[in-house]
């Protein structure tokens, strides 16, 4: 798969006369379907069920963009990508949008030809070990074998952390998450590392989830967010404001259930959000009721969080940093004005 994508990218870069720039909105509308780069399977973020229906926090980003652009949140083609294939797929135009628990970093933002549109989950890297090892802290992992997925910031943070704490590391890397988790489960490694949200999600897939614990240390900042190709500002703005609108909606107490009543609200902020007043969706090159459609079909950020990873899901992750700024977290969106 990776080589196929590599070669496609190569061929695309060499032979496509006009690189995909400033055309994404038109292409998506003409195609009638949004190509969205998703994880190959990470519970809570993007995972297809037995009927092939995708759900997850990242999937909701794809659905919201489809609702905004095409008016229908189901018009999405999910392209499952491994960690190391994801950027090439976006660069080469295989996907219009990458919503695949991807950490926003300086080098990715500047040298990979992509733009991050915001943060939809503030995460940090952690470790999982077997309870039987009686390890209570990541600082006790000197000399341990650690299973890690290739082509991730995780791989780099792991080497950094062990180096900074003068510990011996034996990393064992695999190309996809599935192989990595299987190897850890089979006892190939003492510890497994990935973003903390991923640890909780992957633990459900282990043979005996209760035999494993997540260590308390969070060793890195992992702001996860969607990204688009560099050079198409209109598309960049659309994806960015789809994310902001979902956060603003939660801030204003608008959700998928009360959105129709809220149309009659006297609050000018809500009226602007839902397109009753002003022409904020049109400024993006879409329709007035763009944000209304997102909230109606997908919901606000809080609903999406609870349904996929929070209290309403199997993962039951505490919202922590991902609470709204007004409730002790750092989720904050600029106003629609």
């Amino acid at each position, binding site marked *: 798969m990776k080589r196929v994508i590599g070669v496609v990218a190569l061929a695309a870069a060499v032979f496509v006369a006009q690189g995909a*720039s400033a055309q994404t909105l038109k292409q998506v509308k003409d195609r009638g379907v949004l190509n969205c780069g998703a994880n190959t399977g990470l519970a809570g973020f993007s995972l297809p069920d037995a009927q092939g229906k995708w759900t997850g926090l990242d999937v909701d980003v794809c659905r919201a963009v489809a609702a905004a652009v095409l008016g229908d949140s189901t018009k999405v083609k999910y392209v499952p990508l491994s960690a190391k294939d994801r950027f*090439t797929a976006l*660069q080469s135009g295989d996907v219009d949008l990458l919503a695949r628990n991807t950490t926003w970093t300086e080098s990715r933002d500047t040298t990979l030809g992509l733009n991050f549109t915001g943060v939809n989950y503030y995460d940090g890297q952690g470790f999982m070990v077997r309870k039987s090892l009686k390890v209570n802290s990541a600082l006790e992992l000197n*000399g341990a074998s650690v299973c890690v997925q290739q*082509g991730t910031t995780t791989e780099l943070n792991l080497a950094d952390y062990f180096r900074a704490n003068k510990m011996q590391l034996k990393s064992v890397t695999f190309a996809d998450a599935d192989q990595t988790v299987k190897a850890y489960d089979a006892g*190939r490694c003492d510890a497994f590392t990935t973003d903390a949200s991923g640890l909780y999600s992957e633990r459900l897939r282990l043979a005996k989830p209760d035999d494993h614990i997540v260590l308390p240390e969070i060793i890195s900042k992992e702001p996860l967010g969607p990204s688009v190709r560099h050079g198409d500002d209109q598309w960049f703005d659309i994806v960015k404001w789809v994310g902001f609108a979902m956060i603003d909606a939660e801030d204003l107490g608008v959700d998928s259930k009360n959105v129709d009543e809220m149309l009659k609200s006297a609050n000018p902020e809500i009226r602007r959000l839902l397109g009753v007043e002003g022409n904020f969706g049109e400024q993006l090159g879409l329709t007035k009721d763009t944000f209304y459609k997102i909230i109606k079909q997908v919901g606000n950020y809080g609903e999406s969080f609870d349904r996929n990873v929070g209290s309403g899901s199997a993962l039951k992750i505490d919202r922590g940093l991902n609470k709204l700024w007004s409730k002790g977290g750092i989720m904050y969106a600029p106003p629609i004005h």
Partner: protein
Amino acid sequence: MAVESVGAQPARVAFYNDPKVRSIAYQVVLCVLVVLVFYWATTNALDNLQRAHVASGLGFWHQAAGFDISQTLIDYSASVSTYGTAFWVGLLNTLLVGVLGIILSTILGFTIGISRLSKNWLLSKVATGYVETIRNIPLLLQLLFWYNAVLKALPDIRDSHKLFGSYLNNRGLFVPEPLSEPGFGFVESALAIGIVIAVAFYYWARKRQMATGQQAPVALVSLALVVGLPLVVFFVLGMPLHFDLPQLGRFNLTGGLALQPEFVALLLGLSIYTAAFIAEVVRAGILAVSHGQTEASYSLGMKPGPTLRLIIVPQAMRVIVPPLTSQYLNLIKNSSLAVAVGYPDLVQVFTGTVLNQTGQALEVVAITMLVYLFISLVTSFLMNIYNSRVKLVER
């Protein structure tokens, strides 16, 4: 000018109808076209990359890599090594598995190929069964089988099989590492001297056999020189060697030499798979030698062993070597399936992690392709040299 009409000027043909001029013109046009396409593709690619703000060029080669690699033959550390060093680590890992795979699959393939022609019913049927089973199952499945079904099923590190200070578990095979003490240099010199004398003895014995027909016990004498001599020196010096035993720490075994399951799975998978094809090549080669050669050899009083070794195989090699070369090339290229079992070969490290961290697909993929091309061409070149030595020399 074989024919020239007398008295008349040779019919002048318009220059554009001259076949020579035409063929040159066609070639020039083709060359120009190829160059133009190449130029357009390159500049276009650079343009597109620049417009998309994707970094280009080979500047990444000297940047710090920052990731760890599980098996390194040269010094490598996440803190100081560059992407360039990571490339060499991956390349050496590819070459290691390639070279060892070629050696193992050749030995196994020749054994099976010859066994298939054996008069022993059981032996030949077992060999046939091996070939038919192995070569009809995709290599990727076999690799996954070795890695997931065989090696991961080994006991956990705390319940390792222990034997003579070695440990076998699902993290690999850990054996004591021999470390030399002062004086071990004499043993090494003894080995070198033994090899030199053994080679000299071989040539002397062959010359004498040519001249007088007397045979000398070359094998026994060589064994004594190459193995016996260093051993004697070793014991006389009071065994200047100690072993670094693997120790079970809190998490892992430390010390000793470790053979990782990823490497073993890839090596086994590649060798066993390619051996099945080599066996068929060898069988075909041997069958290509006329049966009359065997009969002639027997009637001269030679035994079956020397007949095979001295009469049949040298003639069969002419048929065997060219297809054997392509099997070797297949093995090297198939080693890129390492990615399926997490072995850090060139593709896994360079086209995997380095490509992802730098995002420079164009450069990384192009370099990897060139490297595989180069390795394959060198292998072909060496095999061609060998082929020209064994091929039929017409006198």
